[in-house]
């Protein structure tokens, strides 16, 4: 592994000296995401393998190029999981890519996102220095929490080499329920239920139907099933539904109409933009297929207290992520410069200049 690290360091330092750039790439399953990236590809997949896994510690430490499927299979053998349900989009995604993209699936609103499960990592910065932040323990406040800030940075701050993630036991029981409700009523119910100690682990609303997934202790799921009413889904179609939402294999995500991800407060009103819509995360994530002008979509989302991402398709050369206020943009540039002064890593993938 040291030879590989040395080779990477040489590439990084050479690129930094020559004003070149490197596009970090794992399985390429999320290549569609973010802005068009420039730079010579650096494939992380030779850096693979589980470094440490102790189920009773609830921690797994994995090299960045390890296939996500391999990690998830190992965890499943021990009755555990990546609770944030990273989307897989296509076979071949890596753990490093999962962390760098920072994307979470249906369980996000119930348990937290990628960054909430990152405990530590080793990364190479734009100077070729190997840095270790965080660790393998749950509570650790020594130094700035750089490892969590790497989640969602899309390979623009550094090259993730090894990452430690908190894992959770798979819930003993799971059941799904559906209700016929209009959007406003569904949003209201989701928020009202969120204020009760119910084991809701996922939700989706579209076309007048709200579906909930309940996960937890057998007794808790049974009690919630009795209390909530609705129509129970058989487990096979329910599993297929949640997998389709997680991996975007659901028919909603097919075709090449621009796909917008609107991240809004869970209690925000209906988005009311032209196009078709799918609501997840208890109301906090609204997917929109729409050809409406980006400015309109961003303005409406911002008015609701959220931000809009052109998640897939459409123009990838302009702003894909929501524009930042000027002081925040300056701060983010400072941070990029702190880790990658020559601008080597995946330049422009997140924003122009980052």
């Amino acid at each position, binding site marked *: 592994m040291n030879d590989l690290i040395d080779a990477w*360091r040489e590439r990084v*330092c050479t690129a930094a000296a020559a004003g070149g750039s490197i596009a970090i790439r794992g399985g390429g399953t999320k290549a569609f995401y973010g802005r068009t990236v420039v730079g010579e590809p650096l494939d992380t997949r030779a850096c693979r393998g589980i470094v440490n896994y*102790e189920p*009773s*510690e*609830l921690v797994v430490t994995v090299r960045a190029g390890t296939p996500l499927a391999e990690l998830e299979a190992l965890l499943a053998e021990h*009755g*555990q999981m990546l609770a944030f349900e990273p989307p897989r989009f296509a076979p071949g995604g890596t753990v490093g890519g999962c962390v760098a993209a920072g994307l979470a699936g249906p369980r*996000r609103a119930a348990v937290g*996102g990628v*960054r*909430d499960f990152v405990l530590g990592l080793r990364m190479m910065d734009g*100077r*070729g*220095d190997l*840095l*270790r932040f965080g660790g*393998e*323990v*749950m*509570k*650790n*406040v*020594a*130094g*700035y*929490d*750089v490892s969590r*800030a790497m989640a*969602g940075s899309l390979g623009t*701050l550094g090259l993730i080499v090894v990452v430690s993630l908190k894992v*959770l*036991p798979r819930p003993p029981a799971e059941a799904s329920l559906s209700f016929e409700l209009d959007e406003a009523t569904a949003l209201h119910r989701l*928020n*009202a239920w*969120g*204020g009760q*100690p119910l084991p809701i682990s996922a939700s989706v609303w579209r076309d007048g139907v709200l579906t909930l997934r309940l996960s*937890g*202790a*057998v*007794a*808790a799921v049974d009690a919630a099933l009795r209390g909530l009413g609705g129509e129970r889904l058989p487990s096979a179609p329910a599993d297929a539904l949640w997998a389709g939402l997680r991996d975007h294999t659901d028919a909603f995500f097919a075709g090449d109409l621009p796909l917008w991800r609107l*991240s*809004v407060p*869970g209690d925000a009103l209906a988005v009311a933009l032209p196009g078709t819509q799918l609501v997840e995360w208890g109301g*906090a994530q609204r997917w929109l297929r729409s050809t409406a002008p980006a400015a309109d979509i961003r303005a409406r989302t911002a008015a609701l*207290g*959220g*931000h809009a*991402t052109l998640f897939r398709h459409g123009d990838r050369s302009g702003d894909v992520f929501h524009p*930042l206020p000027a*002081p*925040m943009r300056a*701060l*983010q540039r*400072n*941070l*990029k410069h*702190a880790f990658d002064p020559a601008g080597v890593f995946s330049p422009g993938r997140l924003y122009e200049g980052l």
Partner: protein
Amino acid sequence: MSGNAPDASGLGHAERDFSKVDKRRLIAALARVLPPASLLHDPEDLRPYECDGMAALRQLPLVVALPETEAEVADILRICAEQAVPVVARGAGTGLSGGAQPHRFGLVLSLARFKKILQIDAHARRAVVQPGVRNLAISEAAAPYGLYYAPDPSSQIACTIGGNVAENSGGVHCLKYGLTLHNLLKVRGVTMAGDVLEFGSLALDAPGYDLLPLVTGSEGMLAVVTEVTVKLTPRPQLARCVLAAFDDVVKAGDAVAAIIAAGIIPAGLEMMDQPATAAVEEFVHAGYPLDAQAILLCEADGTPEEVAEEIARVRALLEASGATEVRVSSDEAERMRFWAGRKAAFPAAGRISPDYYCMDGTIPRKRLGEMLQAIQAMERKYAMRCINVFHAGDGNLHPLILFDANRPGDQHTAEAFGAEILELSVALGGTITGEHGVGIEKINQMCSQFATPEILAFHRVKAAFDPAGLLNPGKAIPTLNRCAEYGRERMGSTRPPAHPDLPRF
């Protein structure tokens, strides 16, 4: 390692010299933006600010400012930036690591007047509060809606949410409910340049780099927090606690691993060794078994059905792990009694010893037995007693080293003992601080946990937010010069915390 040369700027090498700060000029400028009652500079008025919860480190600042609005905070920061004055933000001053210790040539920015709860939105399960609001006050305000703010550091009756953000505070329920970071939506803060920024958002994420985890736990080094939006959690219908006794600490450690391995995430999972149990039993009469080498407290919460199911599983696991006795709380009074002993551990230490020094390392749970044996060996080496209480569920240890500061050499011995525990925590794959922060107290041990490239990276992160290095200088992140000196000399005295009346666990 290539690329490891120091920055041309010398960033992170030496402490900056602030001795040229002109107190009169500073006061004159501040008096133009603050009413007289918001600006303290007579030594008598400054006295209450001379230390935080780490009372042995006392230092008067030049000035204390007590702004009431965000605009005043921004004005103060701009003035201090202009005059190159260090700024130390302060909440309730309950921190245990000296993070709010004043700077000799600096200003203390007290957020004590930011104590409004701006909004409790029960439908959206969030609260918008000012940084000076006490942790417990949020839960009290949310209680009528069946909601609460989950992180519960032991000082929660006094500590403020702004301080919790600065320290990324924990508590006894972290394993299930997360740290401060996991319960925040948005933090609004002002940078040294006077810019107002928002980290996070009311949605579940924000565009660009996720700076919320950087700001949370940054010990007042990156921005001054002026508003915090927290998540509120539905209060569980029921909680019950299991108390188990073991004749061997290693067996108790194995029982912890067995519970987690069985797929159970308890609401709380705490351990105490025999000397700690004896100390608290004498103090609070919780009914703990005194012959046990270790006791475990395991709490289940949720619906009555869920709790019954979990308690039954936990009891079976504890018995299979060799517990000599297992008791389950039958009502709320008994549950509180089980916890009373654990929560009284720090005052009990204060009762059996003139002074104590509380450590805060975290280690992988599986190394617990090893750590305890090593601490026993250190007790013999330093001829000093140590009682041990742990947040066993997440591996966070609070060894309490007992000493007498009036006995010559004791203070120094306790520090050396503590430093050895922290360094062993790092060697066992853990960290020097799980929840109390680095502050000034553990700044030398940072040099054990991190190598030069990481220390430099931390200084660069700070410079991205605060290029002139004026926010809380000298805390949390050591200079490279300090790391070079560490080992040759020890820092000044460290005494046990102030606020002896506050619960600490």
